[in-house]
């Protein structure tokens, strides 16, 4: 049977969506990483609640704590960008608005990530 599909399109097997299970899989990988990191984060927030800024500074200046906090923020914002993309994919049906909102989500997540990591580095350098 004749087909309009190019051989490359056929072998990629992606159909009209241009993408496969990559998004789904990245969402799961970040979720698996976030499960233990969230418990650690909760332990930290409870431990710092009601203390002073000196305690928080000293705690976050410790390399292991800074790394874990950085990992928590990194995975959280990646997971958030993926999740918010699904919300936009589901409810926004015009191409222009969809692209605009996806850019807003990605740039916002990147900005929050950059600010958080900069603050962590600044704390470590204090």
């Amino acid at each position, binding site marked *: 049977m004749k087909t309009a599909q190019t051989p490359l399109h056929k072998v990629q097997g992606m159909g009209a969506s241009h993408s496969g299970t990559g998004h789904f899989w990245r969402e*799961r990988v970040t979720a698996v990483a976030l499960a233990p990191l969230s418990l650690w984060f909760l332990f930290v927030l409870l431990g710092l609640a009601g203390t002073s800024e000196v*305690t*928080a500074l000293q705690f976050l200046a410790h390399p292991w704590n800074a790394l874990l906090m950085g990992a928590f923020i990194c995975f*959280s914002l990646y997971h*958030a960008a993926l*999740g918010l993309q699904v919300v936009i994919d589901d409810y926004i049906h015009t191409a222009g608005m969809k692209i605009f909102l996806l850019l807003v989500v990605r740039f916002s997540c990147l900005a929050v990530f950059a600010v958080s990591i900069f603050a962590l580095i600044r*704390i470590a350098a204090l």
Partner: protein
Amino acid sequence: MAENPQRPVAAVRPLSPHLTIYRWPVTMMTSITHRATGMALSVGAVILAWWLVCISNGPEGWQSFNSIMGTPLGLLVLFGITWSLAYHFFSGLRHLAWDLGYGFNKKVAERNSVIVFALSFLAAIAIFALVWTGHAGYLQ
């Protein structure tokens, strides 16, 4: 080409009632709540970034964060985000179990939905109770 006079106008085509007419199954509640708490946690990430910036700004920064988040409205927001994190955590574990093929049985899915809701509220209340009864702040 001539218009078909019998063609119904798109806007007035009858639509079978769906979301508005059925009693919400608890599994639908958990699905929508998972999405809503995920969106709330995105806001939580912004507050976390702001908290870190405040800490890096020294005593005045710490004061400014506490003076805003220590208000009743601020505490309400913190409680909402704490509950959202607890809910998204338990519901997320459930999603990972589904990915492995467990928990699709109707009765089990309904029971687990109630468990996830109960655990999330218990966890959020327990976290705030620990702070208010002076059991937090152990990193001092």
